């Protein structure tokens, strides 16, 4: 079924026309050119993001060859989104785990249960995704991805069975090496006591994510993809990834699908069907503020008296990046609404805004490095 669905999506994606006209303010959708412009801005302002080519055979012809999708690696995820979820019954309870609890054992699941012993267990069964009623149980026992996951099962998934890994340490003997920094948990041999404290705080193991942004031709919006790694840097299973998705979105808008720029890779993705309307709302709100600011500026001495038709403005949003060099960008960053007589928000900011929106779906993954905006 899933395969058929994916085939259908592929065909639909193939058949849908490439959006030509810029309408990002009217309905929140953007053209591939605008996606590139916004991506250029993002990679310029936040160098953690880079453009990627992806698999050459999967290249989309409406995007430049070397700008197929955006990637940032190793985005930290400090705690589970499920630990953020709270309902009426929890109002008095502590809403968040303190970070010290997490670090001391590395097993946030246990800590959560311990600190909230009185909590109904069905709410968040030990850090796993809450039981979601409308998903049928699968009884083949293989699927770790299903909602009704028991605690022990989750544990097995997280840590590979020790028996599975061949025990071959007998033939590799390394002498005690005093110059190797000890991992966080064990007591370092030489460092003095107060230094140990520092080391502990800084050597915490956290989950990390590789985050990709692609352009979805059918929905005409960017689309976010996630590949997760656990504290020991082994890939996360779907059920573990869903722990980092806010409960409202897990299993509904976030699914595991084939990554469009790779022949084989599967990744978790936020389904883009609602992106356009949400983006429209956010942009409207931001735009109003930006216009106000611009009008205030225009009254000032630096005002640019030129007037232009709306069509000209749209052209500017589209091509402002190409015509302006790196230095212009800097000024554009400092005074985003400055010199150019563009009314309202520029499309360059689209992805910055988009990341803020995504941050609400995956609240604990720090995708939004754009806090300065």
């Amino acid at each position, binding site marked *: 079924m*899933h395969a058929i669905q994916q085939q259908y999506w592929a065909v639909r994606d193939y058949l849908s026309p490439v959006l030509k006209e810029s309408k990002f303010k009217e309905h929140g959708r953007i053209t591939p050119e605008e996606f590139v412009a916004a991506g250029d801005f993002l*990679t310029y302002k936040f160098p953690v993001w880079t453009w990627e080519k992806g698999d050459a055979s999967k290249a989309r012809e409406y995007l430049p060859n070397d700008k197929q999708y955006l990637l940032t690696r190793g985005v930290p995820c400090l705690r589970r989104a499920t630990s953020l979820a709270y309902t009426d019954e929890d109002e008095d309870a502590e809403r968040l785990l303190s970070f010290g609890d997490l670090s001391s054992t590395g097993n946030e699941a246990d800590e959560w249960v311990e600190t909230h012993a009185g909590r109904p267990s069905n709410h968040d069964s030990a850090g796993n995704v809450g039981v979601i009623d409308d998903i049928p149980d699968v009884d083949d026992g293989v699927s770790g991805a299903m909602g009704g996951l028991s605690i022990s099962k989750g544990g097995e998934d997280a840590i590979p069975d020790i028996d599975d890994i061949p025990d071959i340490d007998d033939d590799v003997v390394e002498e005690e090496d005093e110059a190797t920094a000890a991992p966080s948990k064990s007591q370092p041999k030489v460092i003095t006591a107060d230094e140990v404290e520092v080391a502990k705080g*800084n050597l915490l193991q956290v989950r990390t994510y590789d985050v990709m942004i692609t352009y979805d031709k059918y929905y005409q919006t960017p689309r976010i993809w996630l590949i997760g790694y656990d504290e020991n840097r082994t890939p996360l299973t779907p059920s573990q990834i869903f722990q980092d998705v806010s409960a409202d979105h897990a299993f509904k808008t976030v699914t595991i699908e084939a990554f469009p720029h790779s022949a084989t890779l599967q990744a978790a993705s936020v389904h883009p069907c609602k992106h356009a309307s949400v983006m429209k709302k956010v942009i409207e709100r931001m735009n109003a503020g930006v216009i106000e600011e611009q009008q205030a500026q225009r009254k000032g001495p630096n005002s640019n008296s030129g007037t232009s038709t709306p069509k000209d403005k749209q052209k500017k949003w589209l091509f402002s990046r190409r015509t302006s060099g790196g230095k212009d960008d800097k000024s554009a960053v400092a005074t985003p609404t400055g010199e150019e007589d563009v009314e309202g928000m520029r499309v360059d900011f689209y992805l910055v805004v988009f990341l803020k929106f995504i941050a609400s779906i995956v609240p604990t993954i720090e995708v939004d490095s754009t806090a300065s905006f």
Partner: protein
Amino acid sequence: MPIVQFTPFSSLVEPTFWHSLTNLKIDVLKLEDHALPVNATYSTGKSIVDRESGQEIGLGCTISLGADSFKSEQEGLSTSTTADSHSVTIHGLFKNYNTLEEFKAADKTALFNQLSQEIWESISSGSTTKLSKFLLITFADLKKYKYYYWFAFPAFVAKPPWEIVGDWESAEDVLGSDLLSRIHTLTSASTPPLPFFLVQNEPGKKVSIAPVEEYSKFFEGVPDEHRTIAFLDPSSSPSNPGWPLRNLLTYLHHHHPSTSKHRILCWRDSERQNGRWKSRFGVVSSSGAKEDGGVRPTSVGWEKNVQGKLGPRMADLGPMMDPKRLADQAI
């Protein structure tokens, strides 16, 4: 004086690497199990501030392998179009075994020694290009989508060990923000990125950097207090420099045995964040005579597994690759 403790490399293997290994195994290698070259990258140590506790959290000392790790330089190492001047590609030896038994029975010590010897010969010949090399042995259980692997990052053991004079300090406090931003400009401009470099900041002269190979010429006439040896540091721990420094110190000691103290700059800034530089600075010294420089020192560096013991790791990609299990979780 406390002994310098280095943060070991920790491997991060992207699922795309296992995908390319699968393709390689099925389409090219088949039952071959000869050693192949492989690439990995590391970049400056990252740390982030936790928004809730305000704590600074370091993100390990990772070395990552991805889809393009099997590609040779001619094919284009990186799919990324914006080359990062603060990320270094290192080369390694890859060996895949056909059965779990062969994987278990592999002569790991021999492979490790072979690689250590290669690094040592490179040090003796005066080159720093092979200071960080790694070994990766794998067994791919393609039917179950399980990948067993074990990394080794050979590093030479100094006897007696290097000691730190005082403590590791913020480079900004010791060297000043000005010098750091100059170094940042210089390193950002260098392509390919320099994993190790020398810095001289003699007053009255322009700050300049040079490859470590040019040590004697570059530092000629430069007073000791203006000689700094820097390396791109993947560690983010304040008091532990990253693994690459180990072999660099071996190199320095081998070629400049008369210098017992080195000013070390652990370069950790790919960009300046919140107006602060994160790089660390320290003076390391070796006390007493070292053993004869001509003999290869012992080396260590097998990666520990999840349990913290010496042993292989396993990546289970079943949940993300097995069509059946993927279909199960799809709505």
